[in-house]
C-alpha cells in the first residue's frame, strides 16, 4: 500500500513537444506529492509539488494534474527542451508523524531530441 507506481520507464520526445509522466498510488494517507528531477551524477532536486486539495498546479512549463478519486497524478512538460533530458521521479508523503518520509516511484528517463 506504500507503493507509488510510475510510467513510462522511458520517454523520447522531440523538442517543443509535450512530455507526460504518470503516477498512481494506493495509500489514501498520502498528503503531499512532489516531482523530482535528477541529472546524471547529481542528487534529485524538487521540481514541483502538489497537495490533494487542488487538481492542478502550474509552474512555468511544468504542470501537475491530480485526480484524487482515481489516486493518480501526472507531470506535463510543455514545450520540452533538450535541457529537460533527465530522470524524473514522482513521490508521495504520508502525513502525520512521518517527518516527511517520501515514497518514490521507479523513475522515468526523459530524452528530448533537438
Amino acid at each position, binding site marked *: 500500500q506504500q507503493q507509488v507506481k510510475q510510467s513510462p520507464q522511458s520517454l523520447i520526445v522531440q523538442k517543443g513537444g509535450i512530455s507526460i509522466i504518470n503516477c498512481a498510488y494506493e495509500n489514501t494517507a498520502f498528503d503531499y506529492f512532489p516531482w523530482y528531477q535528477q541529472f546524471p551524477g547529481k542528487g534529485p532536486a524538487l521540481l514541483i509539488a502538489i497537495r490533494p486539495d487542488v487538481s492542478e498546479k502550474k509552474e512555468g512549463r511544468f504542470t501537475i494534474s491530480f485526480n484524487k478519486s482515481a489516486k493518480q497524478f501526472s507531470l506535463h512538460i510543455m514545450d520540452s527542451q533538450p535541457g529537460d533530458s533527465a530522470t524524473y521521479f514522482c513521490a508521495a508523503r504520508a502525513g502525520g508523524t512521518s*517527518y*516527511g518520509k517520501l515514497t518514490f516511484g521507479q523513475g522515468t528517463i526523459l530524452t528530448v531530441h533537438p
Partner: protein
Amino acid sequence: EAGVAQSPRYKIIEKRQSVAFWCNPISGHATLYWYQQILGQGPKLLIQFQNNGVVDDSQLPKDRFSAERLKGVDSTLKIQPAKLEDSAVYLCASRAGGGARDTQYFGPGTRLTVL
C-alpha cells in the same frame, strides 16, 4: 545557502570490507534522511533522523548497516561487511520542517561499487 554535502563521491571496495559515508545537511535542518538508490530505481529510504534521534529505520538492514547523527548535525552511514548487492548510490537529504518547509534537499550522493 550551502547545499547538502556528502563525501566521498565515489568508493570502490571488495565484498566483506567496510565503508563509511558522511553527510553534512543544510544548516538548521532538523530532519536528515539516508536513501539507497540502485541503478534504474527510485531512492529507497534507509533511515530517518529527527535532530539526533532515529524516527524510522524500518528498511535499514541492521545486521550490516548502521548510522548515527552526532549532535543533531552531521551524519555517518556505515556498511560492515559489504555485499555485492550494496552497490548503489547513497543519497543524503535534509528538510527544515513541516508545512511550507516540506522540501527535501538532496546531496550529490556517494556512488559505491562493491567488487
